């Protein structure tokens, strides 16, 4: 096996450590795992990035094709996000079309990018009402140890940041960089008992009661939020996490 210690831990062991103020991997509750971002990882994509966040590894690729705009936004390009939780990445993932987990990740990342107006869709218009660029953001989990939301979001922003609109290949003119306007970064935390932990590992996610993902942009404005899991948060916890996300989001943004 190529994994390091895979600890099967009962929830009470994790909780005992939390009561002492410690996490299994020694991080602070508000600390993220080591992050590495490699832009331009896949040459066949118009933009790509490989992100490793601790032991979670994700590859995001951007592909663009020409197509018709939606009738209610005739001058804007189209953005669509998809996530594949391929079985290679974790023994719990099954083959087949994206299940609800993959769909939730894709939609949350999409929301952050879309509401955060990451891409200037008007600059992806070729011929108004007739021809626009359709941008596919494809998230591919490679190695899953928790927190796909943030790894995928960071990957998407990094891929967009380093990507190119393939005008030349389409015979429409000169290539230009993907028009990135904002950089929405999400920060995800889980709640175990009454403890809130940022950037959960797979084991922490498995025993968590609830999860909250918050995406903010460089101006500190909120773009997207998603609560998951069957547990709950109190208002103060949510507000605290908003502050956390702004701070950590800024740190992450400076490294993409």
């Amino acid at each position, binding site marked *: *096996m*190529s994994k390091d210690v895979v*600890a099967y831990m009962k929830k009470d062991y994790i909780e005992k*450590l939390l009561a002492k103020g410690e996490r299994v991997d020694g991080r602070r509750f508000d600390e993220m795992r080591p992050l590495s971002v490699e832009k331009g990882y896949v040459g066949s994509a118009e933009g790509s990035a490989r992100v490793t966040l601790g032991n979670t590894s994700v590859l995001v690729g951007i592909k663009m094709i020409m197509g018709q705009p939606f009738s209610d936004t005739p001058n804007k390009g189209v953005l669509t996000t998809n996530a594949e939780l391929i079985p290679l990445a974790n023994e719990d993932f099954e083959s087949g079309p994206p299940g609800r987990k993959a769909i939730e990740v894709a939609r949350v990342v999409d929301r952050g990018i879309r509401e955060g107006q990451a891409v200037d869709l008007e600059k992806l218009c070729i011929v108004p009402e007739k021809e626009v660029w359709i941008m596919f953001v494809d998230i591919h989990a490679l190695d899953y140890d928790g927190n796909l939301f943030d790894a995928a979001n960071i990957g998407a922003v990094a891929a967009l940041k380093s990507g190119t609109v393939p005008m030349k290949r389409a015979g429409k003119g000169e290539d230009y960089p993907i028009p990135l306007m904002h950089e929405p970064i999400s920060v995800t935390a889980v709640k175990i008992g009454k403890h809130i932990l940022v950037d959960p590992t797979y084991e922490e996610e498995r025993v968590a009661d609830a999860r909250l993902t918050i995406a903010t942009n460089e101006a500190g404005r909120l773009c997207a939020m998603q609560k998951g899991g069957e547990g709950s948060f109190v208002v103060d916890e949510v507000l605290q996490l908003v502050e956390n996300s702004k701070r950590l989001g800024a740190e992450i943004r400076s490294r993409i």
Partner: protein
Amino acid sequence: MRENDSKENPREIVVPGDLLAESGMKAGPGAFSEGGRIYAGQMGIKSVRQNMVGVVPLAGQYIPVRGDQVIGKIVDLGASNWLVDIRSPYPSPLHVNEVPWRVEFGETSRFMTVGDMVSLKVVGVDELMKVQLSMKENGLRKLAGGMVLEIAPSKVPRVIGRDGSMIQILKNATGCRIYVGQNGRIWIDGDLESIQRTVEAISLIEAEAHNTGLTEKIKHLLDRNSNKGA
């Protein structure tokens, strides 16, 4: 168990299909013979013992062998048995006749329930790899409290050490009760901080199992940890 080469001998890593012996040897575990020659059948370290040559695997799932002591996790209940996950490819049944208690038909949940960790013995494995488990031997029981760690089964011999030397070092340094299953599950009980130190030491063993000088590194780690709290 496997430390048949001295510290000076470099460990020879072999991959499946590598030639281990031309003639005159028998194939040991991890090796196979073809046309009179012995070849490696798994990735691992070549091991030679008298006239037998085999491979000590560096990776691989747990393969149940009769006589193994293992730690199982109850995953399902039947009317007269429990279904146990012992980290082999299939869950195995533990029949009510193989436990030290008297269990009435349909009463299995009173004694053990889903999620419980238990120490068991493999009393039989048939050609279909169907495993018979038993809890009847002395010392086998439900493991309450503490926590259970999972490591690669191929690393278990290193955690135990030659004649149990490594596990003794761990027990002495941390004061924990440590029970190692052949299937790569390790039960650790003690106060929280001692459990943490034990987990850290075992993680190091797993990462460095194929290297030399491991005993020194472990001793160093444990000494360093105990000074921390002093």
